[in-house]
């Protein structure tokens, strides 16, 4: 234990990261007062099923609760948003006007869905985003009503999973994607091509290189058609806007933390930076809202919108906020996530978005069963598998040992000789799209020193 007594720990954001941190704090022996503040009224639930089992009608939208692994003996302030942070006074301000003092604070406010920019169009019946269980309940009900056509705007992971659920339920679906292929922001153009083939083979009307310019409603205010940038007009009753996520940092504006639209910058021990780029000792960050440097990836700041990352950082933050400074552990988790769509289990490990080149090392792209490895300056940086997830541990070792790229080995299910790396074809990150689920954002914790002003989202 550090010299200072820690009697009060406050966690803002009572979802996956918040819950896991609460458990870890008690596991680590914290016996003081623990408060969880969350703006959603319902107890924490799991999000990955919301775009999968829930849309298939296999699980009810309100039935994905996250079970607590242990009694955490906490004060729960659910349905109450945090609206401000007083760094010097070590107090969190709540929407109901109350103030909650802390010795240690964990910020785990995650992200929210990027809304459709035109507010009037976004308000049409049948237009929605997918982030919360309420969203999933609405979308599932809309799908139950057998819409003529669903339009999915944005072919990132969430959009692709929604399209997959529609097809599995026999519903016509159009996917409109600004980039050249689905998943291109996360996995690049080569694997994106494989994803595009998969979508089309399952009957998705996939349109790449187009944007949706407007959504049109009927007199009753219900969505009836959409206009695309190539001039096409599409009849649709449902439009799901899947354009990526925005980090929930607005409540920290003016707090003095290095918080902005790209998240809250922290060091590898999960300690938040203030706007001078100095690590605080009492404020910790975990989950989708965090970005922190990673030793294996050139100490660049990574933002990871991954389930496993939230769990890992939550545990780490809990440990580091209680222990003595020399016992702090660094964030060394190798990024990993999964997705299931069109009957294929997709897994990723490492940071594909850093890859310059990609090469298939097992299986074959055209069979939708393969492992592809990404290289960055001659070393292995990531691997992605379609229905080949069992091998990824081997590739994790290659990433951890900075193995040379392309990896050379004799093994099972190797592609024919002469298979060579090709450019991974990531789109220019400055072009807005649905956004990848991993973003790499340079080195500095706060881009502008001293006069840090977060840009609008």
């Amino acid at each position, binding site marked *: 234990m550090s010299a200072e007594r820690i009697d009060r720990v406050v966690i803002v954001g009572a979802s996956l990261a918040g819950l896991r941190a609460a458990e870890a704090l008690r596991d680590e022996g914290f016996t003081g007062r623990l408060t969880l503040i969350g703006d959603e009224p319902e107890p924490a639930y799991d999000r990955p099923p919301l775009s999968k089992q829930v849309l298939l009608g296999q699980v009810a939208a309100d039935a994905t609760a996250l079970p607590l692994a242990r009694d955490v003996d906490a004060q729960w302030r659910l349905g109450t948003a945090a609206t401000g942070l007083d760094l010097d006074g070590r107090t969190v301000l709540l929407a109901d006007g109350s103030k909650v003092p802390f010795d240690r604070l964990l910020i785990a406010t995650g992200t929210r869905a990027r809304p459709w920019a035109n507010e009037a169009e976004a308000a049409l019946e049948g237009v929605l985003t997918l982030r919360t269980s309420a969203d999933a309940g609405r979308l599932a009900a809309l799908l139950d009503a057998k819409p003529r056509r669903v339009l999915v705007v944005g072919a990132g992971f969430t959009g692709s999973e929604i399209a997959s659920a529609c097809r599995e339920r026999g519903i016509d679906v159009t996917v409109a994607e600004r980039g050249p292929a689905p998943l291109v922001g996360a996995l690049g153009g080569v694997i994106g091509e494989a994803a595009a083939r998969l979508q089309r083979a399952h009957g998705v009307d996939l349109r790449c290189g187009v944007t949706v310019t407007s959504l049109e409603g009927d007199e009753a205010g219900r969505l009836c058609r959409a206009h695309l940038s190539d001039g096409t007009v599409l009849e649709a009753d449902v439009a799901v806007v899947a354009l990526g996520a925005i980090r929930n940092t607005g409540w920290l504006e003016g707090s003095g933390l290095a918080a902005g639209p790209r998240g809250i910058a922290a060091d590898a021990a999960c300690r938040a930076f203030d706007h001078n780029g100095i690590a605080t000792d009492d404020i910790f960050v975990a989950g989708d809202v965090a970005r922190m440097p990673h030793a294996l990836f050139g100490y660049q700041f990574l933002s990871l919108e991954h389930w496993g990352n939230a769990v890992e950082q939550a545990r780490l933050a809990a440990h580091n906020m209680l222990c003595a400074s020399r016992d702090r552990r660094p964030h060394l988790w190798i990024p990993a996530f999964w997705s299931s769509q069109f009957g294929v289990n997709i897994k990723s490990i490492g940071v594909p978005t850093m890859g310059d080149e990609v090469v298939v*090392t*097992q299986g074959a792209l055209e069979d939708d069963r393969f492992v592809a490895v990404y290289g960055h300056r001659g070393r292995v940086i990531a691997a992605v598998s379609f229905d080949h997830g*069992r091998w990824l541990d*081997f590739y994790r070792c290659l990433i951890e040992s900075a193995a040379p790229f392309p990896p050379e080995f004799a*093994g*099972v*299910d190797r592609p024919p000789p002469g298979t060579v790396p090709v450019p991974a074809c990531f789109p220019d990150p400055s072009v807005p799209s649905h956004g990848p689920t991993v973003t790499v954002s340079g080195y500095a914790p706060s881009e502008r020193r001293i006069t840090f002003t977060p840009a609008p989202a």
Partner: protein
Amino acid sequence: MTAPETMMRRIADPAARPDPYPLYEELRRTPVARQDDGVYTVSTYWEIRSLLNDPRVSSQTRPPLVPTPSGARSMLRLDPAEHDRVRRIVTRPFGPPHTPRRVFEMRRGMADTVRGLLDAFADKDQADIVDDFAYPFPISVICRLFGVPVEDEPRFHLWTESLLGAADFGAEHKPDPHLLDPDAAKIEMGGYLAELFDKHRKDPGDDMFSALAVDDGPDGRLTPPEQVATGFLLLIAGHETTVNLITNGVLTLLRHPQELKRLKDDPDLAVPMIEELLRYEPPVQYLPNRRTMDAVEVAGTVIPKDTDVNLMLAAGNRDPRRFPDADRFVPDRGDVEHLGFGNGVHYCFGAPLARLETRIALTEFARRVKGPELVADPPPYRVNPVLRGPRHLPVAYRGVRS
């Protein structure tokens, strides 16, 4: 002076069969060890697991333990992508996504069989858990599942025993005089299976072999020789191992009477208990069928290319770096990701079936058999060091509940 005995020879020695675990402990002191004959043993948990998921390690390059007829290989001895294709085809009539309820729907028939076997205990005050319980039960299950006439059971019992008993494990032991010559057994059993698949092709039932003989999925159908190779594998893998798991279960429970009582009071305990059993007394003790296709570094040791590797599952299951108190039987240890069913692409195909069978067998044994006690401890074991289990398990008791 004679050369020092290699560890694999000491493990293969029938004298080690009742308790091989001290040998495994010795083996784990060198997690990756080269034996005198050039074979490497890998005996610690993480190292075994990583090799089971390493694409540089093949299951195809070593000759089969049970030689298959007609040159076709079963999935057990195939590498991806061929392995994956065969496994998908065989999974289609067995489990999700295509046939998600097949195993679940067998539970009633299983319960009836177990009830009948235990009813027969009532006439006696002693039974052999192997011959009277653990052996006949899974046989009747797989006969129904696969579509093998039950009356043919004595024939393939003899064939599989002859094949397994004859496999060379490096130890000198007298072959059982009742057994057939292994080549003859192989030919006879191959002929029998070819005929059986023919019969199912002409007159398919709703069993798995019929489905394999006539159904076409997205990957097409197995060739007739592939069907026979699959039949061999399923009949052997689906039976011997389950017999040993049930027998090891009864043995372990009788050695831990307080756990037997807990199971009797709380049948749901069977679920974690069976996982612990697969860790503590795994029916497949090691995998003698892997070979490196490239140099592979594990735990600081480089296994050269083209080297035979034995993956010592039972040793890894007792690795204290992985499981605290590894030598104790703790039915409700939460964290019990054992290697008893292997890992990676060859992870046991029949695991859901084996779990359900063993669950029904052990809960019913605990519930119904009054005051069971071991007659001999240790019991006599089979010679096979890979598929290790008691040959007989005589148990005395004081009646049977209804």
